[in-house]
C-alpha cells in the first residue's frame, strides 16, 4: 500500500487539502493540537476528520499531554505512541504531509 501519511497538527484546519486528496490515497495521523479532533466534539458534532472513511491514528503522548485519556477517543481512531508512529512511517506510508 503506497499511502501518504497526512499529519494533522491543528484542531481547525485552515485549508481544504484533506478534501482534495484522492480518496484511498492517504491515512490521517492526529498530532499536537490535531488530537482534539479525536475526542472533542463541537456543538455535539464529532470532527469531520473522523467521518471521511480514512484510517485515523492519534498520538497518545499528545492526547495525554492535553488531558485526554486514550479511552476517551472515538472508537474509529487508533491510538499510537512514538514507537508505533515510526513503524507506521516505515511500513504503512511511503510519503508524509504535515498540515
Amino acid at each position, binding site marked *: 500500500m503506497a499511502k501518504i501519511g497526512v499529519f494533522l*497538527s491543528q484542531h481547525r484546519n485552515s485549508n481544504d487539502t484533506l478534501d482534495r486528496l484522492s480518496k484511498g490515497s492517504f491515512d490521517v495521523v492526529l498530532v*499536537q493540537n490535531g488530537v482534539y479532533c479525536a475526542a472533542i466534539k463541537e456543538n455535539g458534532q464529532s470532527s469531520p476528520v473522523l467521518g471521511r472513511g480514512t484510517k485515523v491514528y492519534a498520538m497518545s503522548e499528545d492526547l495525554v499531554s492535553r488531558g485526554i485519556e486514550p479511552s476517551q477517543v472515538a472508537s474509529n481512531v487508533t491510538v499510537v505512541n*512514538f514507537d508505533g508512529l*515510526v513503524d507506521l512511517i*516505515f511500513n504503512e506510508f511511503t510519503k508524509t504531509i504535515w498540515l
Partner: protein
Amino acid sequence: MGKLTIGCFSSLVGSMTLDFAVKLAEAARKKGHDVDVWLSGNGTMLAKKGQRSFKDYSALEKTITELIADGSNVVACEACAEARGIHKEDLISGLGIKSADWYLASCFSADRVVHIGGE
C-alpha cells in the same frame, strides 16, 4: 532498517513542534533507523547552545546532544541561523550548519521524510 529525515521550520519552546520532532527522532533511533534532522527558519533556534532549563519551558539541548553522540546528524540552515544572530561559535557542540541543499541531499538518500512546516 531505513533512514528517516526530519525537516523542521518551526520554533523552539512554547510551540511543541521541535519537541515532537526530537521525540520522533529518538524513537526512530531506538528502532535502529538512521536519522537526519534539518533545522530551518525558526527551527534554527534549537541550534543555540546554552539553553537554560526551566520547568515552564521544554529543554531540548541535552536530548539533541545525545542524538548527535548516538550518530544522528542534526544540522541547521546557515543563513536562517546567521540572520537570527546565531553563528558558528553559538552552536551546540557537534551540531552542523549547512546550506539548504544539504537537506535535499539528505532527502535523496532517505527512505522516509517527515517535513514539518513553519508556524
